[in-house]
């Protein structure tokens, strides 16, 4: 076995040093009754070339964004991942290190996390970010836990325009946290601040998404104000790629900002691994979940970085910890940092503008072709909902026959939006591709 390094001779010498006859003797401590005497019923071993061929065959049965012109978004986006991301993530040191428990030989990854935390704080306008959460859904559960302890309250409010998967995960976690979940329906594609204000009474936290799941821009400052008014923590779920153009949640009163990091630096990868980010005002620093890196000095006065504020964490605080997270998503967050460093402020702005311009162009062309917006009059960023005039699932099926995936059928999450497709434009799309979308939709949905 090429992953193992012992020769027959090594084994013999080692067994002798241990003082046993055979490897089997090492397992004497396992009670007879629970020893497994069979041979695992697994398929035969594959050599490296065979393994690659097998996985190539599996991969070939997936329609990916290189083989199909796709306008799918809805939380995971086909943004361009720059080549430097691959180059840096494939460095063996980053790839094969673990959590930097021992800072002296882990300064590289520690500094990278510190730089990542800074980038997230800059994007969101917050004071502290952790080293990453699992994804854009679990950070919402994390934020509930923060809010629960910060306020002592037992309810959280979710705008219905918050990503359905995020809402589902919050609902799964809530009973364990002792929290009730209340949802606030949208009105014409966005959330009404007054309705939110009413729901926010006695709430620990209020969650909304900007741009929201429909791609519409929420009146985010008003929503945050409604929450603050009620003494609930306003939590904004944001797309990092939008934050070159859209205001930072920290600037309109949010207590926490969370989000799915995938759009910055990660491939779609059928949904993971990606990273979730969670950032907060300094008030909540000691309630944050997970790893945080801080700056310090050595005896010579040299600057260095360490895991810090660890008394929040499970390995020290155990049942009183702010979270149970241990393994996180550092490598993916590093990809985010590299991507954001590649973009810089100017690039981030440009990507946003390109998405915005393409989406507006698509809206216009679709409308010209008779496909009306689902939520007329709402400003959008890179996604928008459009009515295709017949059940959207069938339209998707028909369009894919033409090599175009036109978007996500909203009816899968929102009863009543039967003919609505959520269409996403990233900077990888072109004007000609939008034209092709319109052409195909006109053909299959006309």
């Amino acid at each position: 076995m090429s992953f193992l390094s012992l020769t027959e001779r090594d084994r013999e010498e080692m067994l002798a040093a241990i003082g046993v006859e055979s490897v089997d003797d090492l397992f004497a401590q396992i009670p007879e009754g629970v020893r497994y005497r069979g041979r695992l019923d697994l398929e035969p071993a594959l050599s490296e070339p065979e393994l690659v061929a097998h996985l190539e065959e599996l991969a070939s049965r997936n329609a990916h964004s290189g083989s199909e012109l796709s306008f799918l978004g809805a939380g995971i986006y086909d943004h361009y991942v720059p080549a430097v991301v691959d180059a840096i993530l494939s460095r063996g040191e980053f790839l094969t290190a673990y959590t930097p428990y021992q800072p002296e030989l882990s300064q590289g990854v520690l500094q990278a996390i510190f730089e990542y935390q800074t980038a997230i704080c800059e994007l969101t306008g917050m004071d502290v970010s952790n080293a990453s959460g699992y994804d854009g859904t679990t950070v919402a559960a994390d934020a509930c836990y923060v809010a629960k302890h910060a306020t002592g309250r037992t309810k959280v409010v979710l705008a219905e325009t918050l990503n359905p998967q995020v809402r589902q995960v919050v609902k799964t976690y809530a009973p364990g946290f002792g929290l009730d979940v209340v949802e606030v329906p949208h009105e014409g594609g966005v959330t009404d601040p007054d309705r939110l204000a009413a729901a926010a009474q006695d709430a620990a936290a209020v969650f909304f998404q900007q741009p929201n799941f429909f791609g519409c821009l929420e009146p985010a400052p008003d929503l945050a104000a409604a929450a603050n008014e009620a003494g609930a923590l306003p939590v904004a779920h944001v797309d990092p790629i939008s934050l070159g153009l859209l205001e930072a949640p920290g600037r309109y009163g949010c207590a926490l900002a969370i989000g799915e990091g995938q759009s910055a630096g990660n491939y779609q990868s059928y949904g993971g691994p990606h990273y979730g980010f969670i950032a907060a005002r300094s008030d909540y620093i000691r309630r944050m979940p997970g790893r945080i890196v801080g700056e310090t000095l050595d005896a010579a006065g040299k600057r260095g970085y360490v895991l810090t504020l660890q008394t929040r964490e499970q390995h020290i605080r155990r049942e009183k910890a702010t979270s149970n997270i241990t393994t996180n998503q550092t490598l993916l967050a590093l990809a985010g940092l590299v991507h954001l460093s590649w973009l810089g402020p100017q690039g981030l702005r440009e990507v946003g503008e390109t998405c915005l311009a393409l989406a507006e162009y698509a809206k216009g062309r679709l409308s010209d072709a008779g496909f009306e917006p689902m939520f007329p009059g709402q400003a959008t960023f890179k996604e928008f909902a459009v009515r295709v005039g017949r059940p959207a699932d069938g339209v998707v099926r028909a369009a894919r026959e033409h090599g175009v995936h036109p978007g996500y059928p909203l009816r899968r999450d929102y009863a009543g939006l039967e003919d609505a497709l959520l269409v996403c434009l990233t900077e990888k799309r072109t004007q000609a591709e939008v034209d092709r979308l319109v052409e195909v939709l006109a053909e299959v949905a006309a």
Partner: protein
Amino acid sequence: MKLIYEQSKTGRRASALPHPDLPVPDLPAELRRAEPPRLPEVSQPELVRHFTKLATRTFGIDTGFYPLGSCTMKHNPRVNERVVALPGFRDLHPLQEEDGAQGALELMWRLQEILAEVAGLPAVSLQPAAGSQGELTGLMLMRAYFADRGEGDTRRKVVIPDTAHGTNPASVTMAGYEVTKVETDARGNLDLDDLRAKVDAETAGLMLTNPSTLGLFDEGIEEVAAIFHGAGALLYYDGANLNAVCGISRPGDMGFDIVHFNLHKTFSQPHGGGGPGGGPIAVREALEPFMPVPAVVRDGDRFRLDYDRPQSIGKVRGFCGPFGVFVRSYAYIRSYGPALREMSEVAVLNANYVLARLRDAYELPYDRLCMHEFVLSARRLKREHGITALDVAKRLMDYDFHPPTIYFPLVVPEALMIEPTETEPKETLDEFVEAMLAIVHEAAEEPEVIKEAPHSRPVGRLDEVLAAKRAVVKYGFEQHPDLRAEGAPAEPRQLEAQKGA
């Protein structure tokens, strides 16, 4: 070295982006960003050099031996990186229609089948993002199971041994349960008397790592299972140490009802400086109805996602879980095939060899053969020479080794938790042993060399207390504090607390 922000200069950039010839609409003024985020402004050459330099200041398995106990830092085969980057996997949108994702669905289904076989339990969900989330998911399943049986209000307690990893009690609280602690007996097994006294009708279950965090297989496991099952409670298996027993002893056969896997440990997902991981769970039939949605199921030769699970606890993570992690672990297991047992055999052989060579020089709290890892105590060194486990760890860096996990498990004072893994050659084990023995020698001869270690790294020991006190957790640009100006710590203080695992 400089932070990337400290290298920034206005107007410099690393990216070149498309600019379609289209008008950019205005955004509503009240939503528009006022100040651009101060992201790095560097050119592409600078970007590559910066991160290359950071990489060379990072110690990975590729750099050297990494016997960080409980973390199973085994070799990460590069073929797994090759297959995960296939466009059909890498560029697949998670909301793709099922007929456009048959390869991905089949891969997940196959991995489920494999994990079921290894666990000895029939139903698998791949969704949890890491071991800790596997734990929490498992506890949620317990809740749902007991609620369904009308015992939701009475069964409030989960039993946790004193050797348990911190995630176990943390998960218990997050799941809305209470922790009941039990002790470890003199042989390193669960104390059965203590257990019998504590398990009752209020007990929802046990969380156990087996082999335990001491690296010891619980010799009373059958009796343990009988006690819990007898009381109507469930057993949860923390799979962090599964690398010791693949094909040798199956958690389902041991009596566990719920198991999590750490794909990043046992099945070689690269640890990435902290993650990603994967924490699938396997359960008995009785718990299957409560598993997260969607389930990945097979219908003849088609694969699909099944959301129609009315008793499900719901979702614990987006989509189907960390798919890329599944690709790597699937590839890893397929490289072994039915010989997977050999992986565990060699892991246990390597650990016992190192143990045999170190047991006299350090203290061994439980005098047994070990499984895939073992825990020594540096108590004698501390008593005789003032050299702590932390000191040993720091000094090992000068010998080019990553230190073992220290100060864990909590039941062993000055613990050194050593897990060599199966992928290491004997030569490396011997070199590590020599270094560990040399340190014992140095402790007597020149303890200050150890106390001031490491000597070979870009920084010396860092002041963890200062870090926590000042809480500088991001770059502050013009306002960034100058810690140096506030005075260098005469003696940097480290926490003598768990580092690793």
